[in-house]
Structures are given as C-alpha cells and as structure tokens.
C-alpha cells in the first residue's frame, strides 16, 4: 500500500505520521506543499501541526496551497484522504468536510488521552475493529466541532459521524467532551466516506512504551481494509 503525507510549512506531526504508516506496512512518501502532483497513493494524509502558523483561521491558508488542487481531485475521484488535527481543520477549510472547528470551550490548549467511540464501522477506516471504543490522544487548541442544525441533520442522516468523545465504556456525555464539540463529535466523514477528518492522534498511540496501543489497532486495520 502506498501512502503520502503532505507537509505544509508549520506541520509538526508529519514525521510521527510517517513513522506510524511505515511501522504498519505502508510505503510512505513525504510531499512538500508546493508540489503539483501527488505520488501514486492509496492514502493521502494531512498531518497535525500549525500550518502557516494558523495565524488566520486554522487550516485556511493551507487549504489554498498548491498541492491541495491535486488532493481535491484525488478525493473527488474516491481516493482515501485522512486529516488528523490540523489536517482535519484543513479538510474542513477546503470544503471537503462539512462544519468548522472552533476554539476549545475553555479557551485552552488541551493535551491528554481520551476515549473515542467508533460510530460507524461500514467504511475503510474502522471496518473489522472489534473494540467499540479506542484510547487516542488529543493535542489541540481548536477542536471544538460545530455545524448548523441543518448540516448536523444532514451528516447524521448520511451517517457521516465517525467518532464521538466518550468514556471507556462508550458512554457519550458532556462529562467526556474535552473541547465543547457539538454532540461530542471527534471525527467525521464526507458522504462517500472516503475522506476522514478527526482531532485525535492515532499516531501517538502506536507503542506500549508511549501511551498505549490503540493507534496500532487503527493502523493495522486501515492497511488491511485498503488492500
């Protein structure tokens, strides 16, 4: 399986993602933001970080980068595109995913382990994962997912909600909502479910010496599902 990770000026989880993808068998390439074409890929990843410093709305400048034209075409043709953290913000700004990511409810950057409940498994990202909740890691200042009532109805009707923040046993409630996201949303798909955006970082959970191994479960299934 071939993958590539787009690096924008200010990306800072690009190496971590590269390490994770390679660890689970992807042949990964790094792509600089001003490249015109994507290498042959089964998966394109937009990593976390602070693209262009995020001095404007997070992800907005990156969404206009040169390479994004190719990413858009790739996605529209059904290619798998995954955005983590800042990558999620970029996908939203690029119009590939609905909604926006606002500043965290308590206006503070937040870095900690969280549990997420997998909402739908009928897609290439979470298919065949036996667990219903995973322990991932979040590290963001703007992860407060928001959308209009109409949009929410639409994404719910289309089963576009990928992940909820929850407790260990999968209870979704206000207590386990770290950033104020509407309905505890931690990640969403596009209608066709080839594009996934999520705030949590699976790439930081790929080793028991780090925080845990649930990221490994995710990547192992991801490569199998893409095969």
């Amino acid at each position, binding site marked *: 399986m071939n993958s590539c990770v787009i690096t924008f*000026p*200010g990306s*800072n989880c690009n190496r*971590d993602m590269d390490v994770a993808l390679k660890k689970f068998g992807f042949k990964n390439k790094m792509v600089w933001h001003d490249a015109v074409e994507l290498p042959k890929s089964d998966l394109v990843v937009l990593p*976390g970080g602070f693209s262009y*410093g995020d001095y404007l709305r997070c992800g907005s400048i990156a969404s206009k980068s040169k390479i994004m034209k190719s990413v858009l075409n790739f996605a529209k043709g059904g290619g798998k595109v995954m955005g983590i953290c800042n990558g999620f913000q970029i996908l939203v700004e690029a119009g590939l995913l609905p909604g926006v990511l606002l500043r965290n409810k308590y206006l503070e*950057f937040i*870095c900690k382990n969280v549990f997420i409940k997998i909402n739908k498994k009928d897609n290439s990202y979470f298919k065949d994962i036996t667990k219903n909740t995973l322990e991932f890691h979040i590290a963001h*200042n703007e992860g407060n997912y928001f959308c209009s009532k109409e949009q929410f109805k639409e994404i719910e009707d289309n089963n576009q909600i990928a992940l909820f923040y929850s407790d260990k046993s999968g209870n979704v409630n206000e207590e386990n909502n770290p950033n104020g996201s509407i309905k505890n949303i931690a990640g969403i798909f596009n209608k066709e479910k080839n594009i996934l955006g999520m705030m949590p970082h699976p790439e930081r959970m790929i080793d028991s010496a*780090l925080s845990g191994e649930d990221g490994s479960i995710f990547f192992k299934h991801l490569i199998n599902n893409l095969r």
Partner: protein
Amino acid sequence: MMVNEKIAIDHGLKKDEYKKICDLLKRVPNITELGIFSAMWNEHCSYKSSRLHLKNLPTKGKHVIQGPGENAGVIDIGDDEAIVFKIESHNHPSFIEPYQGAATGVGGIMRDVFTMGARPIANLNSIHFGSPQNKKTKNLLRGVVRGIGGYGNCMGVPTIAGQTSFDESYNGNILVNAMTLGLVKKDKIFYSKAAGLGKPVIYVGSKTGRDGIHGASMASASFDDKIEEKKPTVQVGDPFTEKLLLEACLELMAGDSIIAIQDMGAAGLTSSSIEMASKGNLGIEINLNMVPCRETKMTPYEIMLSESQERMLIVLENGKEDLAKKIFDKWNLDFAVIGKTTKSKKIELYFDKTKVADIPINILVENSPMYDRKWKKAKLPKKVKIEKEQFKNLKIVNVLNKILSNPNVCSKEWIWQQYDHTVMGDTIQKPGGDAGVVRIHGSSKAIAASVDSSAVYCWAHPLSGGKQIVCESWRNLISVGAKPIAITNCLNFGSPENQENMGEFVECVQGLGEASLYLDFPVVSGNVSFYNQTKDVGIKPTPAIGGVGLIANYKNMVTMDLKKTGDILLVIGKTEGHLDQSLFSRDILNEKNGPPPEINLFNEKNNGETVLKLIEKNFIKAAHDVSLGGIITALSKMCIKGKKGAILKKPIYLINKFEYFFGEDQGRYIIEIDKDNLQDVIKILSENTVHFDELGSVNDDNLIIDDKSKVSIDDLIKSHTTWLTNYMSK
C-alpha cells in the same frame, strides 16, 4: 546626538564605566557605539557581577563535549550522539507581558539549541509566581502558561516536565526559566567561533523591527512603579517563523557551508556579531543598509539594539551563498549577505556609506567590567525548638490532605495539559513524574530531564540550599532509572549591589559547585538573572537546576505509580525527622525559622548509586524521591498515580510521627519491591551500607497510616487535584 555622561547613565551604564569607555576608545563614543557598549556591558550579557564566582563551578567530566561559553552545553550519550541543552531566564519580560515574555523565552532557548545543530527533542520549564492571593498572580500564571504552550506547541517540541511554585517574594517579580534539550550527531555540532578572512556574514530569519530595543538592559535593572512603560522592550514571538528557521538551519547544516553560527538573542545583532568575531579573534564589517528591516527609517542604533526574534547570524564559506539562499528561499525566510569577516579585530558598521561605529572588539569583550561585589556570609540559623503542645491538636490525615492541596505540592495538571507533551512520539514519561523521559528516536536509549529549585532552603541557608537542589535533581533522575550526567543552571537572584543578595548568590553557587563536583554532575551551561526585585526587595534566592540523565535501555525506566497489592515499600536513606523549613513547619505550624535539612553528600551519592544498582537488576517496580512534605507526601503521590493504597508499619525509632512522616531529611527514596525479592534487595543495601526502613506494603484502596488514621485514595486524589483547577476557574 552628542553623547555625554547623562546619556550613558540613561543607558544603564555607571559613571566610571562611561569613563572607562572614553579612556579605552580615546574619544567620546557616538550614540550607536554607546548603545553597543550598553548592550555588551550590562549585567545580562557581561556577567560582570557573577563571572568571578561562576568560574569556580565544575564544568568538566568524561561526558562533557562542551561546557559553558557556547550557545548551550553538549554531552556525549554514546553511539556518536550528543545532547545539547541549556536553561535560560525570561523573568523581567514575563512580568511585564506574560504571554510574549514566556513565549519568547521558550523561543530563545530553542534557538540556542538548534544553533548548535541539534534538533530540539524536549522542553522543560521552571516558573514561579507570587502568592495565590496576590491579585496579579492568576493572570500572570495564565499568560505564562499560554505563552509557553503557544510557542512550544507550535514548534512541535514536547514539553515533558517542569516545576511551578508560589511564594510572596515573587509578587512583584515572577520567574520564567525555560530549558531545551536537543539531539545532534557528534560530528555535526556547530559553534559560534568565526574563522577565516573575507568570509560572508549572513543574516537569516525574520526581519528586524523596533521591538525589544534595550531588552537586555531592562533585564539588568530592578522594577519600579513605572514598569508598564517598559512594555515596548518586550519582544514579540512568532513560533511559526521559528519552526521554519529550525528546518531551514538544519537543512543547511546537513552540508558543509557553515563556519560559525550564532542566534540573535539578547542584544540582537550586537552581541551575535561581536561574539562570533571575538571567539575567532577577527574583525567584522557590516553594512547596516543590507539588514532586512520590518519598519522604515530604522537607525543604525535601532538596528543594532533590536531584539526582534527568530533571527540568526551565519559566517559562511565563500561561494556557498547561492546554495544557502536557495534553502532559505524554500522556507520563505529572509536571507541577506550583510558583511564580512576582516583582520581589523574591530567591529566596523556602515550606514548610507558612512562609517557609524568603529570599536576594537577586545575593548567590548575582554575589557568589559568585572566586579568583585561585596557580599555577606549567611549564618546557619539555630534549630527551632517545637513545643509538644503544637502537635497536640493535629490529626495526621487532615494535615496530609492540607499538604497535598498546598499550591506548591498539588497536581499541576492544569498547567501541563496545556503543553503538547507527546508530539514527536517519543515521550515515555509525561509531566507529573520525577523527571520527563524521551526516547532517542529509533534507539533503545532514552534521556531523562528534570528541573528543580528550593528557594526556601536557599533563603534559609544559601550554602545548604545550593547543595540541596543539585542533589534533588540527581535524585529525580535516579528515580526514573537514569544515570545523571550533567546539569544546566539558571541563577535567579536579587540585586548584586545588595550585599545580602550577593551573599546569597555567592554561597548558593558555592553549594551547588560542591555538590556537582562530589556527584560528578558537572555544570555545562547556564544563565544568571540578577535584579529580580521590585524596589528594594529581592526575591528568595532561586537557583533552578536542570538535570539530564541517560537511560541505556528505556525498558528499564521506572515510574512512581504503585503497581501491585502486597508489594513491599522501603524508604532508602535515614529519616531523622528534620522539620525546620519543611512544608509542615512553614504551613501547618506557621514556623518560618530554622536551618534547612543538612546535606550529606556521601550518603546522597551512595544511596543514589545503590538505587540505580537495584533498578539495573530489575528489583524496583516503582520509585519516588522524598522531598517537599516528607515521606507521607511522597508515598501519597505514588498512591495517587497508581490508584493504590498502602498499609504502613509503626515507625521503630522516631516517636514523633509528624517528624517521621513530614520531616524533609535529604537523600531519601521510597521504592516498591516484590516480596520475593526482599532478601536480595536487603543484601545489596547492606553490602553498600545504605540505611533503609521498611515503610509498609501496597494495599488496594486505602492508605492506612495507623489504627486511627486511614484515608481513601479517592480522597487523596481529590485533595491533590482540585486546588489549581478551582483557583484558575474562579
């Protein structure tokens, strides 16, 4: 403008210093030159009050590649790899403007590290605020934490450990010390010594603006009522540009184009250009019209004294300009050839085709003032006699809960959750433990780092206090299973012109020198921050020590959380029940007098090395050093982390249980071991003549202190975790 004595004094120079400048130059300096002198000769850059004493610190050791005098210290960690690290203060700016002050402190120290060719792999910080009741404290804390996070998070470097304290002596002068560790290949370390004639001098990074002019001079003076007016001297940080600068510099460093490189920190272009030339025993010529400026009509004076952030000065090999420019263009950064090295041994500045400064470099550097300030020796305070009456109404569980929720003991999770501590995917011990630990990417090695200070002990008796912090740093590293290698120090003191404050400095430095020599734990870098005071009142002396240690195989790392019910708990080191200057005496008995605990360097070394032996043999399942709040506080933290309880044995030789549980004797650790290994462990301890006591054993949900005192882990957690969050949300 004609320069005169008054203008010189307005620049922070003393009368006789101004006279010395005129004598050395054999003329009156012009305003640009005066600015340069004031920048080079202030306390912050010249170390004029501290140099004499700092030279006594032990700085050599078998792991030391580079000691003090460069941008940062460098230590060998084997396999052709080295760790570059340093701690630095940004106290004054952070009090004036907490967000930017703290942010640029973090930015500055990271630049010091990557200037040497190292990729930063971990950040730490030591931050100290006034009393929680002080009306400024909350906003300063919030601003500083956001600033540290804002910069470090954006850079993508994990903040893995830190220290926060509150004390009324910081009411008018907070402390913000930032530390960075970087990883470099041993043959790819870059230094700031220029070499060769006619080599191009290159300016890269951000443009120069009018921010931070005289920042270093501001940091060399005391605060008065007019501090608000000093806001323009605080720099403004741009972590995004620094991230680009980091990547661009490392890309250029992969080749062989660079002769010398120096970041523009305090005193900007002035100190960076002069330092590079001075170290190379060369001259330097700069055309100031070539310096990229952010604002129009900047004068030579302003260009030379600006402390705009995210800038570097590089001496390049001839003919490498195009190659270098291409890299900086890729990263969208300014790149300008602004001058060249010369044989004149002078700094010569040109602006609009006129020479605007012409100063022999040795005058600025070697002839800079050095003072042997008067200082007062501190007496060891007499031991306080505590009356039995004072203990009578105290209940041990109440006291414990009170101590666990004390601002200086309670959980600082509210702070470190705002720092990205897991980016780079190698953080194997997060903040909240004895030390932060990061793996060396792709290897089995790991680096542990901790930052410590004990202002109360240093205030009570500077010599003992100085020794104590080095020992505490050493213990924190050992507690995670790391072999301590070297330290960096950030020496925060009041005015050197005050004999008591100067005495505190001299004796703390002496103490830390003695301890670091004895423990073979040399000082490889550091920074001095004087004038931490408002009006005439200095802060408590606060030397902060950043310790770095190596774990050969990260699988042997130890954490403090209790692991298994039934395991045995031992206290390593002798408990004498020293209460003077303990948290218990100060906060519960309200007794602020007496000497700090005594330091026995022999025991310290022997106990620490023996604990390391036990760790190497895999006997230790959890370890934690005993510090503020004594045994019971240390144990409670182990309980809280592991969500386990403990059953304690009756102390066999100290009748007063408050002395036993809350005394702050040094050189101690609590360790958890498997019952089956007890005899083997005792054998090793005895062979090494290490004193130990059996504290008790691990239990399920309760900490059972004696038949009358019992507390649930949930209650301990509550006491420990609520204070700071509540305080900040009010």
